[in-house]
């Protein structure tokens, strides 16, 4: 079975029209035409006539959950989510940034998405290893079954072979390339702090220059701010103009969190984020 992108696009349009027409939502967060077919854009439909510009194809990698916190609380929003994106929505609900009742979730069961910059299939690398959204009100297509099960952590194999010193050297080298454009944090659905710690100057946590100190401070802190919260959508890594494989760190931390707390980010609305929820039987591994 392969994914019928055209069919998803048609269903997306039909649903969007229905929701806007019925006044059930005031905006639909989905995908629209970009400057060419390979470069679709995140898109906001506000009125019926906007729906015509919607598209869905294998290059629609953007995680629309990023935009949820941009609208005033209580705005009724329909949002198109791919598997990993749906987890971001759940995580944002857990963190009380948005309310479930304000959302209409349009789930997209999908695999075979491609990075629009490189054309490479992103499945094994930067999606959370799922083919079906975890949560949805309407599914735009058929649930995907029978695809090979890939662990999202398989890509860590090479990374985990490195010892502590090699990892430190690896990250120092990778993060040295950072130009501090902050595309990673801006693309991340979980990076909603205002202001971000790196933009504060009382106290000043890190320098603005793209040099080792500040780069390490920014990225390592951000990595840890996302511990137990990262849903592995891969947006940070795709957004990065200099291709820093940020996903490796996030995945590693996510894996450890999952092992320690028996809970992956954004899987159940009733969960509390692992690192803000104290349980007596929590693992003490981190202290050892």
């Amino acid at each position, binding site marked *: 079975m392969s994914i019928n992108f055209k069919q998803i696009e048609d269903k997306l349009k039909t649903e969007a029209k229905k929701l806007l027409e019925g006044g059930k939502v005031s905006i639909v967060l989905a995908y629209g035409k970009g400057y060419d077919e390979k470069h679709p854009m995140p898109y906001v439909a506000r009125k019926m006539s906007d729906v015509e510009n919607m598209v869905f194809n294998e290059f629609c990698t953007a995680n629309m959950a990023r935009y949820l916190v941009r609208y005033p609380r209580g705005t009724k929003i329909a949002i198109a989510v791919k598997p990993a994106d749906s987890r971001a929505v759940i995580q944002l609900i857990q963190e009380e940034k948005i309310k479930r009742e304000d959302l209409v979730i349009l789930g997209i069961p999908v695999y075979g998405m491609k990075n629009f910059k490189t054309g490479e299939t992103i499945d094994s690398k930067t999606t959370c290893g799922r083919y079906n959204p975890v949560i949805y009100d309407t599914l735009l297509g058929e649930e995907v079954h029978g695809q090979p099960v890939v662990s999202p952590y398989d890509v860590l194999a090479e990374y985990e072979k490195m010892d502590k010193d090699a990892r430190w050297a690896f990250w120092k080298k990778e993060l040295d390339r950072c*130009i501090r454009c902050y595309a990673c944090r801006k*693309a991340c659905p979980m990076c909603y702090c205002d202001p971000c710690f790196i933009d504060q100057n009382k106290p000043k946590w890190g320098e603005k*220059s793209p040099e080792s100190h500040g780069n390490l401070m920014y990225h390592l802190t951000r990595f840890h701010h996302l511990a137990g919260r990262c849903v592995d959508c891969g947006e940070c890594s795709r957004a990065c103009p*200099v291709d820093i494989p940020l996903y490796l760190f996030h995945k590693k931390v996510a894996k450890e969190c999952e092992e320690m707390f028996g809970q992956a980010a954004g899987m159940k609305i009733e969960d509390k984020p692992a690192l803000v929820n104290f349980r007596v039987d929590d693992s003490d591994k981190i202290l050892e």
Partner: protein
Amino acid sequence: MKKTNFQDISDLAAQLMGKGTLVAPVKEVAGFNFREISDAKQVDLNFYNTLMSPKSAFFPHTEDFVRYDKNKFVLDAQCVELNLKPVFLFGVRPCDAKSFEIMDIHFSGTGAVDPYWKKRREATTIFGYAFDPNTPADGADFYSTLNIGAADPEGSDIFMMKKGDELLLQAVTPKGETLLSSLSSLVDASKDDEKYFDDTIAAGHSFKTRFTCVDEKVIAKKLEDIFLKTEFWEKISDACLSCGACTFVCPTCYCFDICDETLFSKGVRRRVWDACMFTDFTLEASGHNPRTKVYQRLRQKICHKYSFHVRKYGVISCVGCGRCTRNCPVNIDIFSIVDQALKE
């Protein structure tokens, strides 16, 4: 006119390295970038265009002004000297060479003169490099829309182009002429080469990238007229993440911050690239911020480049290199926005 075999570029590079600092395209993880060359073999002209623009040769991401010790008197602060060897900026595409002229107007042509830009500019000889007319334009480019040809020597001191497996080099300025005649690894070009050179420059003008040309004054006026049409600006910035990727890769974005960066007691006051897309760009000490919304910041960016700049300096502050489009995480295409604005 001179020439060399394309395979022997490293000889030319080595010779330039003997005369000063060579900055040339190098293949890196995410694409090509201009870097200071330490090994002549690193120079690689098999690129379409670089990821980052060559502006950092004159306007580096960080430029140190003063070194200080915060426990000592202000009098003990040391002004950082800029001692430059001659710099050879090698392999600059025509649109990027044009960007230097636009930046010149801002940094040294009007008002206060920026001493760092001026000094770095004076120390540098620019080797322009024509786009290969046989290679189709990258889908993101739109330099021809801004009247820049695929093989315009304008802005270069020496202009280079590929002819088969040879590289032709023609001096454009007296500075380039002097340098070119001193490069012994080159041989004289033939009459045929000269004709090819001129033909290619001419052909470069009929080479079309996206969009059609529009008079800059028309664009500037239109953007001014719709400045307060919030609905339009909100719509076009729906996708914008408000990150700084577009401004940092841009050859004509020049906004900067001046930062004091201290480690223990020692520190340096330096300028660091900044971006109008960042929330704190216009945050005043009092906490007031005139541009808190994404649409206000994207509007500023677009109007600055295509309207305010025309009004203030007479030229559009964009060369159509397509870097912002290529590197935008959400595929915002700056000239598509201008195009839409013209239809408003």
